[in-house]
């Protein structure tokens, strides 16, 4: 990195495209498979966005379906269910940002302070494990534990205490969703923070300890600044994905708490678009979501640059 930065910019521009291609050919060659994957699975499907401006009929295909301009969007913006799911999405995203985002950071810091490597590996493995479960399994486990006929409630019943079916309570659904997400994903998310911690120069700790800095001072002045770049990057990505709070998790629990609490933009597209053969409507909702996400990620990135951090790329 630093060698690139110190190169005078004038020299860089003198190289012709051809020369640069020749210079970087092995690197470029290595990116080909990834670019191909992106093209096939991310760019080619963009073609389907056309259907958002049509009354798409699968029987006659995209080319022969009737063009309706912005009709689908007009209907969409007049649909209270759509606004309901958008509100749900933003609310869930916000709560997850507050409650979920700091946890992997805290876990990484804690884990980093465990000295025994064996113990650390054990804790790490246990924390990773739920990531590999499917949502169906994760929710079944929650249902078996906390459901109306689950372990906890049956225990309370046997002691003649009042029960609480948290799995079907729409009022606390956001907390349920977040705790499920934390249980399943927090362990996995610490990896990137652990990597950032490992990159911090240990000399800094030693010299500050010699200077008399305590545990908290070292955390505040060395560890956190050292992790700031990664934290900002994760935050930018998280904000960009604010409208993507998950799909299966809500699909599976939609019946349990009712559609008003559980419908997010993705399930909206599915139930009111695909499931009722109203493909164009679903595509319109999907396109709306993508446009807003793009704006979000762009502004979050700007914000990161304003704070002097890298964000997604160096400005």
């Amino acid at each position, binding site marked *: 990195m630093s060698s690139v930065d110190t190169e005078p910019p004038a020299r860089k521009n003198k190289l012709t495209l051809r020369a640069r291609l020749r210079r970087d050919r092995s690197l470029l060659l290595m990116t080909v498979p990834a670019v191909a994957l992106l093209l096939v699975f991310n760019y080619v499907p963009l073609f389907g966005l056309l259907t958002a401006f049509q*009354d798409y*009929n*699968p*029987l*006659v*295909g995209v080319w*022969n379906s*009737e063009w309706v301009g912005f009709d689908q969007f007009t209907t969409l913006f*007049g649909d*209270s*269910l759509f606004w309901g799911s958008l509100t749900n999405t933003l609310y869930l995203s916000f709560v997850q940002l507050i409650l979920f985002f700091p946890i992997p950071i805290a876990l990484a810091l804690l884990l980093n302070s465990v000295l025994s490597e064996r113990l650390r590996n054990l804790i790490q493995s246990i924390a990773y494990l739920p990531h590999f479960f499917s949502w169906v399994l994760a929710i079944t486990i929650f*249902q078996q534990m906390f*459901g*109306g*006929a*689950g372990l906890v*409630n*049956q225990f309370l*019943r*046997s002691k003649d205490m009042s029960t609480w*079916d948290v*799995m*079907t309570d*729409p009022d606390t659904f956001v907390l349920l969703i977040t705790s499920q997400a934390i249980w399943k994903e927090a362990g996995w998310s610490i990896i990137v923070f652990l990597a950032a911690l490992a990159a911090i120069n240990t000399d800094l700790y030693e010299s500050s300890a010699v200077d008399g800095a305590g545990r908290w001072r070292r955390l505040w002045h060395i560890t956190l600044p050292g992790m700031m770049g990664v934290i900002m990057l994760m935050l930018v990505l998280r904000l960009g994905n604010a409208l993507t709070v998950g799909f299966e998790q809500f699909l599976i*629990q*939609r*019946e*349990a*708490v*009712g*559609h*008003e609490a559980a419908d997010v933009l993705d399930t909206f597209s599915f*139930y*009111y678009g695909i*499931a*009722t*053969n*109203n493909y164009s*409507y679903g595509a319109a909702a999907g396109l709306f979501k993508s446009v807003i996400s793009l704006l979000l990620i762009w502004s979050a990135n700007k914000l990161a640059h304003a704070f002097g951090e890298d964000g997604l790329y160096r400005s």
Partner: protein
Amino acid sequence: MGIELNRRRFLSVTASVAGLAATGGLLSACGGGAQQKTGANSDALRSALPSYVPSTSIKPDIASVAGGPDVLTDPGFLTYPSNPVTTVSGVPGKGGKYTTVTPLWGTIPPADNSFYQAMNEALGVTLEMKPADGNNYATIIPTMTAAKRLPDWIQLPSWWNANFNVGELAGSQLADLTPYLSGDKVKKYPNLAAIPTGAWQAGAWGDKIYGIPSFSSGFVISGGTSFRRDVLEARGISSDQVKSAADLMNLGKELTDAKAGVWAFDDVWTYLFPAWGVPLKWTVKDDKLVHKYDMPELLDALEWHYQLATAGYVHPDALAGNNADGNVRFYSGKVLIAGGGSGGWNASDHQSGTAANPNFRRDSFDFFTADGKGEPRIEVGSSARILSYLNSNLKPEQIEELLAVADYLAAPYGSAEYTLINFGIEGVHHTMANGVPTATEEGKKNVQPQTFPFLASPPSVISNPGSDVVTKDYTAWQAANVKHLKKPVFWNMNISLPRSMATADAAQAVEDAIKDCYHGKKKVSEVKEAINTWKSSGGGDKLVQWTDENVLQKYGTGQ
């Protein structure tokens, strides 16, 4: 087909309705099709439908019981007929080669396996069987129809008619079978003639026959309210004590013991709401079409179910929408009363149940009215929901050859042909154990009930070899309840809605609200709000008006 197929055109042309009702010889109502100008008269479909000549070659152990017009119970067989009779003389095919596509919910058997070979030899044709994953079937077929590359013979389940746009395919890509089967012409194919007229009507579009029905039945209902007869009897409760919704609610109180992990009910809504006089979808009042959402009876039914859920008589996992484990809860006795689809009352259900509890016995409550007064009215569904179609590119002699094959496939239960189609060759795919064809390893691998019978099959029977109690209980329940079965408005009529109405017809938002209500999460008043929204901005009122004008007023109720 093509660019000119825009929405406006659909609105003006697709009053494609096929319908007819045989009410003791009085025939009424039918329709014009997508490919036709509107207003085909009822005589056209009446003369088009095949004659019905019931098969008498094999006598069932428990005979059918007739209910009202076009309604009768399925015959029951306690033993598999010994010395199977042959109903088709000679080989039906003339050596033609055809491709077929059918949905299959299960493991796809290997291509060109020993069973397919045996079948092709018996049929005298080469059928290239291509079963496709049933779960993705609704998305696979539209790609074929879009490319106009349907196989020679395809099965299109009628519950996906709207997805496949069968009304549009009929005549353009699917062959018109009327010239080969109408009236007495069907007698050339005796086993096809033994399929009741109503089932052929389920595959009719415009005034023409397109679909070949499989598993047709005179007793088509979505299901009933099942209960654990063994458990209830042990507690001195008999099913005839339940004569009203209030009785059922009281039973809920009596049977629920949450501390012991037992709840009286699983989900029951789907099969119980007709007790309040709610139709499947439509009813006619003062010559006007009324949607069930506009009926106060629907709200009454919901109110009762809401109370059932909030009173704590429904298993929490059922309220949490976990339907997949519903049977497990029922087998293990964690719930004692559950809505049961009519397809689920069979030998494999009995085996699973008795594996959990040797005393397991499923039974179903007789139909009752919610207030316990008057006659219950249970609306029957379409007489056939599995229909196969031939490609319109086939030449007439090819169509005749395949109809002869279909005739073979529709051979009655227990015939020699039926045994081959369903169990393969004796000694290779099955052996006879206690008079029951039992699959060998080779049979388990290759002989699938969802391959050839999905192209054509005889009318349904009730037979559960090895589980006589199921056959006896089920036939007895059907016989006791057949009198309550009535034909709904637009019975067996294929209606292809304009695309713009599809969303209103699916009414996802209302159905969601209804589900939330019977799970105790939404009050009835909130469902009412959802219905009002559906009526005004959701296109509901337009749907009712369109259907009234274009179907009811033109073609009648079809009852």
